[in-house]
């Protein structure tokens, strides 16, 4: 029976986990960009960089946070390069006929996504890492390379802003200003 090198087993484990985490990376990339093609690009770039750098990862427990940090950097790179998000190819890939657009919740989903998109990028990243990915404040701080206090303040402001946007966006909010705003989100839920 041939010996299987430890490194091979480790890399095999990484590959399995990369495959498993891919949908999560994409979901977060989508929440950051609200652009399916760009989200696929970010996911792809993240995986490519992860594969290239996998040997440098010492602790597999840190894999998830490491991947999201890579994706954060990829996102920064996109900003720096000022990559156009209006690529004709991207438009071809966007299929609006999705199950979500056919469901009864599509209006609410659209409303929330628009509100998230309206948040500052740094707030959006913090919010999605905590709320969608379930990273702790410490992990989020590590991924975004900011102090924990910054995560807390960004999160607090992001949620407050999101709530304000959702309240304002609720149908009828403009026409019935006398209604107390505080009740609206609870009613949607």
């Amino acid at each position, binding site marked *: 029976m*041939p*010996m*299987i*090198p430890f*490194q*091979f087993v480790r*890399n*095999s484990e990484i*590959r399995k986990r990369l*495959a498993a985490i*891919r*949908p999560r990376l*994409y*979901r977060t990339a*989508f929440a950051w960009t609200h652009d*399916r*093609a760009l*989200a*696929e*690009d970010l*996911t*792809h770039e993240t*995986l490519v960089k992860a*594969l*290239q750098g996998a040997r440098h990862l010492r602790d597999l427990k840190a894999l998830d946070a490491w991947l999201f940090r890579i994706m954060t950097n990829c996102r920064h790179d996109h900003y720096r390069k000022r990559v*156009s998000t209006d*690529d004709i*190819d*991207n438009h071809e890939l966007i*299929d609006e006929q*999705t*199950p*979500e657009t056919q*469901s009864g*919740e599509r209006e*609410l*989903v659209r409303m*929330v*996504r628009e509100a*998230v998109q309206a948040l500052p990028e740094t707030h959006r990243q913090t919010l*999605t890492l*905590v*709320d*969608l990915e379930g990273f*702790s*404040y410490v992990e989020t701080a590590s991924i975004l390379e900011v102090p924990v206090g910054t995560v*807390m*303040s960004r*999160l*607090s402001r992001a*949620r*407050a802003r*999101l*709530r304000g946007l*959702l309240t304002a966006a609720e149908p009828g909010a403009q026409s019935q200003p006398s209604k107390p705003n*505080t009740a609206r*989100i*609870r009613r*949607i*839920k």
Partner: protein
Amino acid sequence: MTATDKISDEMLNAFIDHELSDDDMMQIYMTMSKDSDLRTRVCDLRATRDLLRSAYQIAPILSQAQRLPSRFPAWGLAAMVALMSAGGLLGWLAYPVWHPPAASALVADVDQPSASRVKVVFHASRNDAAAFEQILDEAETLLAANNGGGAANLVRIVANGEGLYLLSARTSPFKHRIQQLNAQHKNHVVFAGCSQTRKRMKRERGESIELLPEVLMVNSGVIELLELQEKGWRYLPI
């Protein structure tokens, strides 16, 4: 000043995220029991968080837009134990530098009638004609072994990055050979090109790469490689 005023928004957010110490959590629970405003604030925060989660709960489509055809039958778990010993130092360990695998190692078992089916995915990420030629040699050897009957060997050749040029209708030096391999072993070999790379080249270099007609497009070469390896394919990069 009410109890609610004393608890900052940051604290309350940390409370709903279970980021506070047990003592602090208990303190807020106790305050909530007496303060309806605080309960409202907590409720609003949780509702906002739940709304966010629900908005992204439905997968916003992660597509391999043009999948490889499922013309290969389902496979078992058996996959190239002999290759792991002979080629185990290749693949991921050698990435990104590829040393040509020992051809004898690759074909050693497939020459035996009792050999398990071999599934190999070759990965071309560099525009290296010499290395690619060796890939084609290895692929040919593996596929030629299928003529002996028994379980067939399967080969995929996935190109992304600069490797896409090797499958380009305009620049590939191997057009004839790819065409020939595909014609002779069309049920057992697939050439695949990465759509992400193609898009990126168009976007960043204004370069439009037309792939050979034998090449199937997958949305992401990397993801294709991950999925194949997940299914037990042996990975050999250049």
